[in-house]
């Protein structure tokens, strides 16, 4: 029998009985809740009336971007054959493998790298479509692999820069020849088309980024921080870039919201729900055996975050009309 610390409650038998009853109820509810969470966390597989022979494998649905891609996909294909959330238990894979083999999906949609690697390991014949993977070029792309990249085209980003900041004409980029020479060449040409001059300084692993950036800052209206692996090789290098730009009062335009707190003025990234929808469209095209299907598609939607405080600090001229295109305003 439970005795409550508050003696007064024990002195009133009816009250004590009610509380004990409630406590039992809460315990059993909590038990079922934990059991449900455990089961749904590991293999959240449902087999409703299937409309498409498609299986979704999510690396971890508790991660916001993975969840958004998942939801985006389901707005187009609401009843896939199954849905698996690997969560943090993906290494215990035998049961999940069994589920995949039994369901025999024609197409597996993989959200995130964990899901992609898992699918590649457990299945050979199913077509795999991926999204939410940074830098897909590092993957081995098989004949039956398709995907939506996470990186927007440079021309899309430059067009947005021009739209939001029409007076920002000279943009500087640090890039590594090893990874991004072609990219830089293309971006320069795209920039020219919209009246932006892209000033690039090539760097390598031995280059002193601080002095390269110092040189660049003297000559540009903004810095475009791209996902170049050499430029972003160390955390210190990133904070140093922001510190230098801040000291020179030059805005940083970049590709990931992770840089907002570091002091980025503008972030343009792929809109995640749209990549999920694109993956679903690609799935339907593959299922209907359409010809001329691009293996890797570029994101069609953008997500824009702007820090208005930094805009004011950097004395940038913002096109107020373009505010209807901004998803997140930071004041």
């Amino acid at each position, binding site marked *: 029998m439970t005795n409550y610390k508050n003696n007064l409650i024990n002195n009133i038998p009816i009250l004590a009985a009610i509380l004990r009853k409630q406590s039992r109820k809460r315990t059993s509810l909590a038990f079922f809740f934990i059991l449900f969470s455990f089961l749904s966390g590991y293999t959240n597989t449902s087999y409703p009336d299937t409309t498409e022979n498609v299986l979704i494998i999510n690396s971890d649905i508790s991660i916001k971007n993975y969840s958004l891609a998942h939801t985006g996909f389901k707005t187009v294909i609401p009843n896939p054959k199954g849905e698996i959330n690997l969560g943090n238990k993906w290494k215990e894979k035998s049961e999940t493998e069994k589920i995949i083999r039994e369901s025999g999906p024609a197409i597996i949609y993989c959200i995130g790298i964990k899901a992609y690697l898992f699918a590649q390991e457990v299945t050979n014949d199913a077509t795999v479509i991926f999204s939410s993977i940074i830098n897909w070029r590092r993957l081995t792309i098989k004949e039956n692999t398709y995907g939506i990249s996470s990186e927007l085209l440079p021309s899309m980003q430059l067009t947005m820069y021009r*739209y939001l900041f029409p007076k920002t004409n000279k943009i500087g980029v640090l890039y590594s020849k090893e990874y991004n020479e072609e990219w830089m060449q293309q971006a320069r040409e795209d920039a020219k088309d919209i009246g932006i001059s892209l000033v690039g300084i090539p760097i390598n692993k031995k280059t002193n980024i601080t002095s390269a950036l110092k040189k660049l800052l003297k000559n540009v209206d903004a810095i475009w921080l791209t996902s170049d692996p050499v430029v972003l090789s160390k955390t210190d290098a990133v904070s140093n870039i922001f510190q230098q730009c801040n000291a020179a009062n030059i805005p940083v335009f970049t590709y990931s919201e992770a840089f907002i707190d570091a002091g980025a003025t503008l972030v343009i990234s792929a809109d995640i729900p749209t990549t999920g929808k694109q993956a679903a469209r690609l799935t339907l095209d593959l299922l209907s055996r359409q010809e001329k299907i691009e293996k890797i598609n570029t994101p069609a939607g953008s997500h824009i975050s702007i820090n208005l405080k930094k805009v004011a600090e950097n004395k940038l001229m913002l096109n*107020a009309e373009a505010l209807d295109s901004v998803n997140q305003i930071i004041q």
Partner: protein
Amino acid sequence: MGMYRKIKCILSHTRNHTIPYFYKSVFYKRCTYAILFPTFLCIFLFTNTLAPCAEYKYTIYFYNPETNINNFASLKKEFDLYLSRFGGYQFQPFSEREIFEKLISEKKDGIFIISSWHYKQLRENISIEPILVAVSKNKSTCRRIFSTSRIINDISMLSGMNVASASSEDYTKNVLIQMFGENKGAVASSIKILSVPKEIDALMSVGFGMADAAVTTDSSLAKLSAINRKLHDTLKQLLISNETLLPIVAVPKPQDENHKKLAKIIKDMEAAVEGKNKLSMLGFDGWKILNASEKEYLEKQ
């Protein structure tokens, strides 16, 4: 003993460091009456005076299937901030049509910003009255344009195309049926709509090869022309829709004083820089009172 003497007595006790137990308990008791009670009374009176200001009076309910607005958090934050200067008004955007329609039929404590197309569908069943229409570049109307980078000789060639649009799928299909003509309904229904967040995304996705065509407003095409002429020139404007009214402000019938006050706040937004910036987030420059022909358009089937 008067209040002044009581406090003096308490303080004199506190100055004396050797307070016997009896006096201590008296001290705490007196503190409760002389200091804490008036403090609580003040807090109570203060919060009650402020309560009417903190309470939300009326709400602006917003739903627009013509735009795929997904910056709800920013919209709500910015509009609430702007509206707070006029009292306890708030802004509530919606992404789900069904939820919004249920609400609009029940709620009388606010006014509605809705698309003119949506109003036409609702007006039979819901008692609301349109009063203002949005204005962009001095125009209260727009046209939708079907742009593609492909060479199309016949509408049937559009069958099965991937079309990017920043409007809802329902709305885009409706525009396509109207553009293609009633007898080409099969072509319109075979079109696959890719919903993107912004009209500029829809146009860029055609220009850069992620979609076969886009349905956007004429003003978005004009914007693209100003930003990226080369990209704009790769797009062929294949079909143009009829002119439609921009979104409207509607109030529940009968109107009360709060509806009128809130409508005036919305109407006056363009006069203040901050208000104008908030309107830009919705894609408008301002509002104007509906004229007779615009009212007639809204009442037409």
